[in-house]
Every structure is written in structure tokens, then in C-alpha cells.
């Protein structure tokens, strides 16, 4: 059994004049110690997906359907009290912007100790010891000093180290990291990412990495999901997708990577932009930007088809697979 299994998750935002569908029936699973990448442009619903796993979507958002099974228990149907026992303890989160994540008026020590005390019967002195140990693990300079400092006294990189330390504080099963390095200086992004990966491996923690950076995902994750307009349009082993992307959108993303372009030539760009939630087109949501789109694509939402180990939601890919099958049958 997978550690985390998300089945047909539906997330909506209740607004005047009806619901906006932010996540439309996504399914995926995460095994113990696995590294899963979740990619997409901003507005694809990546962060909403991440927050909904811990049932932390802010009003007016709500989980409208589906299951989130963590060790067999459905988080989507759990009471707030039970969820609290899982949040931070079994599943930890790392937010995007370390400047905004730590409470500005509480010391680093307070914010670490309170997390421990929320889940363990432990004295403050012991909690501080554990906190200090974790700060050492994330290689923060002069860790003893940091406990009594306020977040604004730390640099952005140091704050994200603190947040990684807090995530590891209670030895969770899963860490969900939502763009953990985007807000940081380019020079330290790689450093923080390497630290996060190393510690996850060391503690055998499953990592769900949410990012818009396909390059990072291709280096880091074993499996990946590509999201577009609230749907997963392609998922499977990272290597397979990077080497031979099926969905036109994923192909576009890969071609847009700087390392794919030739020096001196313009980078490839997918024409158009992600639709906003209130005007998602009918049929395949990608159809207005897709060079292969036909009338069928504009009317019918594509189902998943399997190509190798990859699941793809695209009529064009389905048609190709169908054609290949026919060819194989005709000449056995």
C-alpha cells in the first residue's frame, strides 16, 4: 500500500455565482521515501493541491470530492482535531517564501519548541535541545544564537534552513515542499535544495516537491506529475517523461527549457497563457494553446491513456496509440 494515495480529488472555491473548480479529479500516490515532483505554470493548481492534502485550503476553498488516504486513513473526511495530530507531525510542509512563513514577532526558538510541544509531552528544555540539534543538522552558522533571534535577524537562506529544521523536527513521513527555493537568491537555491534532498534521504522521508521549474524536477524526482488548469495531464517516471514527453503541453514545457534551445536563437515559448479558473475552456483545457487541437479536443475532455509507464490525458496521443495498435495487428 502506498504511503499517501490521492484519489479523484476535487477542490472548489465557493464564490458568488457558483463554484470555481480549482482541482478537477486528480489522482496520484506517494511511496515511503519516494521523491515526487509536481510541475506546472502558476495558476495550474499546484499549491492548492499541496495545501488540500493537509486539508489546509483557506476559505472559500473546500474539498468537494475524492479521497486523500494517508496510511489508509482518509484525511479529507477527518475531524480538525485528528488532522491536527497529523499536521506537522506525520506530514510537514515547507512554504514558498521564508520571509512570510515565520511569525515575525516570535523567536525562532519559540516557533520550534511550540511545534514539538504540540505533538509530544516534552519539557521546554528538552524541546530546545532537539531544536538545537536540528538547527545543527541544517548547517546554520552559530545555531545556539539563532534560537533566541527573531526571524528578521536571519537572512532568507537561513530562514529557509530554519523551516527545513522545523519540518524535520518531528521525524515526519512526508514533507510537502511548495516552491521551497523560488523566493531565495539564485546563488543559494541549489544549496538549500541539496540540503533538503540530503536530509530527506538521511531520514527516509518522502518528498513531494512542487515547482514550476522542470529542470529541478528532472534532477530531483523519481516520478512526476504535470498539472494544467487543475488537472494532471501527464504523470509517470521522470526519466521517461523528460526523454519522451507525450502531452503537447509537457513537450512545450521541455522545449522551453534554456538548455534545450540553441545558442543565439530565441527560446521556445508556448503561445497563449493559462486560463483563469472562471473561464476554463470545454473539452481539453489546453486546446486553445495546442497546435494539434481539433473539434474533438474542443468538445470532449480526454481520458487517461497509458503509453509505456506514463499516463497521459490527450486525444492526439490516444489516437496515435490506437493507430500503432492497428498497425501491429495488421502485420503480426
Amino acid at each position, binding site marked *: 500500500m502506498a504511503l499517501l494515495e490521492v484519489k479523484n480529488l476535487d477542490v472548489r472555491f465557493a464564490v458568488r455565482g457558483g463554484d470555481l473548480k480549482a482541482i478537477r479529479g486528480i489522482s496520484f500516490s506517494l511511496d515511503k521515501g519516494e521523491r515526487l515532483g509536481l510541475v506546472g505554470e502558476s495558476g495550474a493548481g499546484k499549491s492548492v493541491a499541496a495545501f488540500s492534502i493537509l486539508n*489546509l485550503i483557506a476559505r472559500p476553498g473546500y474539498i468537494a470530492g475524492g479521497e486523500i488516504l494517508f496510511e489508509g486513513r482518509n484525511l479529507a473526511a477527518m475531524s480538525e482535531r485528528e488532522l491536527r495530530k497529523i499536521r506537522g507531525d506525520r506530514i510537514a510542509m515547507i512554504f514558498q517564501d521564508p520571509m512570510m512563513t515565520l511569525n515575525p514577532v516570535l523567536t525562532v526558538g519559540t516557533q520550534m519548541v511550540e511545534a514539538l510541544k504540540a505533538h509530544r509531552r516534552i519539557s521546554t528544555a528538552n524541546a530546545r535541545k532537539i531544536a538545537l540539534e536540528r538547527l545543527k543538522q541544517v548547517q546554520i552558522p552559530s545555531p545556539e544564537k539563532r534560537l533566541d533571534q527573531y526571524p528578521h535577524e536571519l537572512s532568507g537562506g537561513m530562514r529557509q534552513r530554519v523551516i527545513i529544521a*522545523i519540518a524535520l523536527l518531528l521525524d515526519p513521513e512526508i514533507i510537502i515542499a511548495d516552491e521551497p527555493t523560488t523566493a531565495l537568491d539564485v546563488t543559494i537555491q541549489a544549496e538549500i535544495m541539496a540540503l533538503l534532498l540530503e536530509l530527506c534521504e538521511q531520514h527516509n522521508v518522502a518528498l513531494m516537491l512542487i515547482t514550476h521549474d522542470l529542470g529541478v524536477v528532472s534532477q530531483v524526482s523519481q516520478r512526476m506529475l504535470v498539472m494544467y488548469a487543475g488537472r494532471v495531464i501527464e504523470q509517470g517516471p521522470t526519466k521517461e517523461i523528460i526523454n519522451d514527453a507525450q502531452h503537447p503541453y509537457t513537450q512545450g514545457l521541455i522545449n522551453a527549457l534554456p538548455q534545450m534551445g540553441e545558442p543565439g536563437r530565441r527560446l521556445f515559448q508556448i503561445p497563449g497563457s493559462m486560463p483563469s479558473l472562471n473561464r476554463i475552456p470545454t473539452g481539453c483545457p489546453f486546446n486553445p494553446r495546442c497546435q494539434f487541437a481539433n473539434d474533438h479536443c474542443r468538445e470532449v475532455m480526454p481520458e487517461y491513456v497509458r503509453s509505456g509507464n506514463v499516463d497521459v490525458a490527450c486525444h492526439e496521443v490516444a489516437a496515435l496509440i490506437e493507430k500503432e495498435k492497428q498497425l501491429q495487428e495488421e502485420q503480426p
Partner: protein
Amino acid sequence: MLAFLVQRIGQAMLVMFVISVIAFSIQDGLGDPLQQMVGQSVSAAERVKLRDDLGLNDSIVVQYARFAGKAVQGDLGTSYFYGEPTLDVIMEHLPATLELVIAASLMIAFLSVPIGVYAAIKPRAWLSKFFMGVSTVGISIPVFLTAIVLIQLFSIGVTVDWFPDDTGWGQWLNGALSTNGGMPSYGRGDDLTHLFGTWYSGFFSENGLLHLLLPAVSLASIMLPLFIRLIRAEMMEVLQSDYIRYAQAKGLAPRRIHFLHALKNTMLPVITVGGVQLGIMVAYTILTETVFQWPGVGLMFLEAITRSDIPLIVAYLMVVGLVFVITNTVVDLIYGLVNPTVKLTGKKA
């Protein structure tokens, strides 16, 4: 810390300088000390000599310097009406106003924080909507009108006879809607305790507290809705922030999230606004004291205006200005001490 202190005190002194210039120009423009001193019966030649003696023919700068020099030593002139040094007159009236402001501030502090926090945490609750509705109405009622209604209800009393008196329920409704009145609504009462100097306090006797009740409630009524709305709005904004969501993601109890993580961030801007509002409350004491004939500096000031007691008006301006400047500076300092992100070097980190 020292640099911050020096900068703030420098600012405060600059503001005091501006206030003193305004006060001086009022005195210079409106007050003719000669008229007040000697009346009509003095010859023109004597007038000229007197003007010279009093230094009224000196240049404006010299006159201002003299005015400011005296002011620094605590000499703000003599009241025409009382015939005493204006500062003494003000010191006699100041404790009454301070007690009024203290009582109203306590009411505001103890009511606005719990109500504001509750309305922010449970914005959809029936009780929250009720509180917000009442405060919207409350903001729209001028303080003197609240005072008048309070007097009508609790001092004069209201007899309701809308319902038939020969039925049980009618009698009950009439009784329930009628008020007895009898609450004191005039002055501070006759049972004041001498604390020190000119400070006679009404805090230590039932009579004194009863006299304080209606004026303090009406003074509080103007600020209470503002504070409830402010605390609610700030708290709701804080509750939207990333660090609150992060605190939830850590699995903390809602009580800790609301009352430590959120409230501490909410109170920072509230302290700043609160300091300013405290100053504004002094202006409202003029209205409250007028309605209740409360013998504080507000009533004294208004009477000074009707009596054209220019030195007393000027002295009031200087003293109230000083009180404002001191409160604002102290609030800034407190803010700097409470907020870890202000490094007390004068600028935000």
C-alpha cells in the same frame, strides 16, 4: 535605542515649537493685554508708555522669545477670568479630565479586544454580526447625542405606557421598557478623595464612581466601535497571512494560533492607532464635559472661549499639545519595544 530616543524627542520638540508659534500668534493677534489691564479710562500717552513697558512694541521675534522663555519656566500668563496663573487653573481642572479619560480607556480596552477578536475568528457567527451592526450604528452617533440619550434614560428616566396597563404582559412590558433615572449626570459629586497636589479623585467612593459612570460610558462609546472594527480588521488580515497558515500546518492548537500568533501581530498596529486615538479622546472630552458639566479642562476651555479668556485658551493649547506630543512619543517608544522588527535605531529593519 539612544539614537531612536533622541530622534523622537527631537521630533517632539519640533512639534512643540510649531504649537507654541501658533499659540503665540493667537495671543498676539487676539489678546490686547492693555485693554484687559486698564480698560478705557487711560489716556493715549499713558497707553504708549505702558505698551513700551510691557514690551509690546518689540519685534515679533523678541516677543516670541519672551513668550517661549516664560512658557518653558511654566509661566503661561494670567487668566483674565480667574485672575490666577493659567497653569494653576489648568492643573486644578486636569485631574477630572484625566480620570474621565482613564475610565473610558479602561472600558474600551476591556471590551474592544475580546469583541474584536471574537468577530475576527467567527465572522459568520450571529453574535459577531450583531456586534458589527451595533458598532456601525455606534460610529454614526455623535458623542454628545449619546450623552444626551444616556441622561434621558438613566438620569431623567423614561416612563413607557404604550401597552395596556390592565393586562399582566402589558404591565410587564411597560415596566421593562421604562427606566427609573436618578443616575447623577452633573459634575463629579461631593465625595472626592484628596490624593496629592490638585488631584482630587472620584475613584475611591461610590458617589464619585456613580458620577463618573455616564460621562465615561459616553466618552467610551465614540471610540469603542472604532477599536472593535480596527481590531477585527487587523486580526482578519493577520489570519490570512502565510505564517498563520504555517502555524496551522505545524499542527498547533487554534487557541495558540489565535491568541499568540495572531493577536500579537494584531496588537502592533492597534497600539499605534490607540495612541493617536487617546489623543483624539482629549478633544472629545470637550463635548462630554460640556454635556455633563464635568469640571475638567475641556469644559474650562469652552468657558474660556465664551469668556474670551485668551491667556487661558493659549495655555490650554500648549498643555494639550504637550500631552499629545508626550503620548505619541511614548506610544512610539512602546511600539519599538514591543515590535522586534523595529530595531530602535529610528528605522524599520
